[in-house]
């Protein structure tokens, strides 16, 4: 309201509205929609092709180990090594303040989790995915604790310990929690031992229901599925000790005297594996992945209508 957009009809703003999270909020298009729980401001479900899938999304963080690196068990979490203190990440915020902005081309929910985590959830007209644009940082360290924030999607899928990630340009590989294909694994680091590179996509499937949840990212990240039905991706890191693997510095980056901000996007597909309109969900994901990787180049110039023609 304070920007006067609601009164401005010139740019599809006639439907713009800003509401507090009292009742549930739904944004979307004819193909896909997202419901936000009015009681806490978090994602509640995604409806694709008429099928509603319960999906929760939240931000959490792992606290990084700060050791003395004297021996293996005392190694710190650092640039090379991900070593959380606990296997259970800490929720960043239980309640989320929201504002909704609807227009002719895109519908958005702006979420604020706390003073260092916020997000925009958006659905463009004609698209079959939901975009989550997250902004994390500067990660506070006044408590002298290094933090490794994640975004986590939770569904009711019975994914049977399986999830899929691609890595470094290779094909999508099946990953099984607490398992290695060529030896009997006994993971002493239950979280990091199950983390895998996610170069462009991580997904889970419920074969019995024929459902899939896939998250495409805009940069390489680490990710996992620590419980059936869950997908988590690390979005930022700020750590206070060197892990003694060669960098010689703690992963504690700053810009203009403050911790770094990270802003990125996750593109979420949720629906039947078979997809819709004879296009499988995997095919829809592949086409979007190409559009992300080879996005059009945008150039700005001063000019005239003649030049436009």
């Amino acid at each position, binding site marked *: 309201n304070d*920007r*006067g*957009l609601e009164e*401005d009809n*010139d*740019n*599809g*703003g006639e439907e713009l509205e800003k509401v507090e999270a009292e009742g549930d909020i739904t944004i979307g298009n004819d193909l896909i929609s997202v419901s936000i729980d009015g009681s806490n401001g978090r994602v509640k479900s995604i409806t694709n092709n008429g099928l509603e899938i319960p999906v929760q999304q939240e931000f959490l963080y792992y606290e990084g180990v700060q050791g003395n690196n004297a021996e293996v068990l005392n190694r710190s979490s650092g*640039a*090379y090594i991900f070593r959380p203190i606990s296997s259970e990440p800490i929720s960043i915020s239980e309640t989320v303040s929201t504002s909704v*902005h609807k*227009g*002719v*081309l*895109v519908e*958005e929910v*702006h979420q*604020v989790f706390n003073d260092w985590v*916020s997000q*925009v959830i958006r659905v*463009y*007209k*004609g698209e079959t995915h939901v975009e989550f644009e997250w*902004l994390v940082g500067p990660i506070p360290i006044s408590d002298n604790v290094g933090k490794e924030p994640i975004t986590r999607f939770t569904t009711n899928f019975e994914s049977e310990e399986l999830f899929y990630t691609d890595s470094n340009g290779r094909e999508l590989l099946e990953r099984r929690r607490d398992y290695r294909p060529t030896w009997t694994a006994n993971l002493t680091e239950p979280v990091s031992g199950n983390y895998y590179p996610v170069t462009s996509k991580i997904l889970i499937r419920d074969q019995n229901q024929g459902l899939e949840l896939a998250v495409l990212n805009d940069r*390489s990240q680490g990710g996992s599925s620590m419980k059936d039905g869950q997908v988590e991706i690390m979005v930022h890191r700020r750590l206070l000790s060197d892990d003694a*693997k*060669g*960098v*010689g*510095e703690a*992963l504690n*980056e700053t*810009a*203009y005297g*403050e911790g770094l*901000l990270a*802003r990125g996007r996750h593109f979420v597909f949720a629906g039947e594996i078979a997809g819709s309109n004879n296009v499988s969900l995997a095919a829809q994901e592949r086409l979007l992945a*190409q*559009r992300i990787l*080879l*996005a*059009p*180049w*945008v*150039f*700005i*110039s*001063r*000019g*005239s*209508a*003649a*030049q*436009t*023609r």
Partner: protein
Amino acid sequence: QAKIVGMMEAMGIMQHHDAITGTEKQAVADDYARILSERMSGCGDVTRKAINNLLSDSDEASNLELKSCLLLNISLCEETESSEDFLVTIYNPISHVVSQYVRLPVSGDSYTVTDYNDEETPSQLVPIPDSILNIAYRNSSARNEIVFQASNLPPLGLATYRVTLAANKLQGRLSRDLEESEESSEDDHSDDSFEETDG
């Protein structure tokens, strides 16, 4: 050629595992950023020339000063924020037709987007989140982003859209009307000397 090779060299450096994973010292990270920024700027000169070659061969079009917005990750673009009337040229690097939504930060409250045919394209203003606006080092007047869809971009081809501040467009129309009115008035008093004036 030297500028393209410069970019190739930068990309070669960025393939080192330290640059990929972030396991470099901070000073090295800063140096990587410096190298990339310089080389991307150089490569931008080449891109500008290439795209101008693809555009109309008229003198006017071949002089387009194309600029890239490298700070869109914090919703900042000097070119779009400071201009009430600008062109957006979009190149599709994929070998089939795609449609893509374009988002650009702007300072005004109402804009009109027109395509090459001067037909209005649906657009929408969306507020930039407060968390971005509050970034201390983001020196920008933009509080909104203009969103429009670049539809059916040709394979390995271009499309150009014009974005005009609505008030500016109105003013432009008024000026044109005024000019036309003056011209018709001048016609009424036609005299050879009028043709020789700058007006």
